[in-house]
């Protein structure tokens, strides 16, 4: 009985893991009414200027990575556009179809949120930007910090992290939580 069920059990485990990984890595790709743009820039604290990510060495202490994300979720399905100009033209010509919610994120932390009803802004909120360095004191900020720490580990720490599994992830989340918040 157990020998027959073991492959099923293992297969289900693998399937659930794959579904979980796919869902976590690309959570919004299946919804056609969502538009998202992502820009990553490097801020140099000496020159006080932003640079493209290819122009700067990320290992330098003076360089901090900032990720800017714009998300617009339309209340209704929108046609797909080849360029941002096409989208702009569509919204300009059909303002009554521009209804939904727009969010602007810096390093995973929402800093601007506005609801749009038929092309008119309603309920606009500007959030204060966190002073806690490059990560905000939110679940997303702590998660990003933990991911970055794990990715920047040397080979023996990476090996230890894989071996420890959940404990390693939890330790990094706790450590980031204490540092950020």
């Amino acid at each position, binding site marked *: 009985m*157990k020998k027959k069920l073991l492959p099923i*059990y293992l297969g289900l485990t693998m399937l659930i*893991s794959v579904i979980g990984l796919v869902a976590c890595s690309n959570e919004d790709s299946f919804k056609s009414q969502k538009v998202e743009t992502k820009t990553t820039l490097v801020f140099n604290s000496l020159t006080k200027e932003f640079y493209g990510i290819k122009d700067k060495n990320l290992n330098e202490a003076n360089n901090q990575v900032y990720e800017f994300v714009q998300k617009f979720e339309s209340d209704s399905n929108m046609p797909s556009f080849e360029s941002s100009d096409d989208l702009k033209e569509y919204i300009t010509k059909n303002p009554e179809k521009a209804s939904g919610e727009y969010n602007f994120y810096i390093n995973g932390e929402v800093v601007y949120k506005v609801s749009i009803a038929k092309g008119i802004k309603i309920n606009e909120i500007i959030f204060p930007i966190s002073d806690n360095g490059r990560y905000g004191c939110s679940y997303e900020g702590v998660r990003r910090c933990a991911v970055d720490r794990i990715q920047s580990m040397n080979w023996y720490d990476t090996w230890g992290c894989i*071996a420890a599994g959940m404990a390693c992830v939890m330790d990094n989340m*706790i450590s980031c939580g*204490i540092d950020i918040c």
Partner: protein
Amino acid sequence: MKFFKIFLLAFKRVFDFKGESSILEFWSFFLLNILFGSVLLIFFKIVFDTELPAKIYRYVSLLPLYACGFRRLRNAGISPWLFLIPLVNLFLAGLPEKNKEGAL
């Protein structure tokens, strides 16, 4: 108290890769190990601003964790070497004992 004794037992059987461990023994050690390491990390991070003791503990506890995992998989009737596969090993460690046919 029983869980704590089981937790210490895993450290006592640190080099025992050939015996067997029950589901209770494995999961008690697994959960208390995470909890103890986390408490250690929080304490040293807040009081002394260092992660070193927690990091050392994590490395030290790997051996009893893997010994316990190997014993658990042997107890479940499957190859203990499968415990080396990350993520899958935890699901395998939840399989019932080999002498409890049909318990799955």
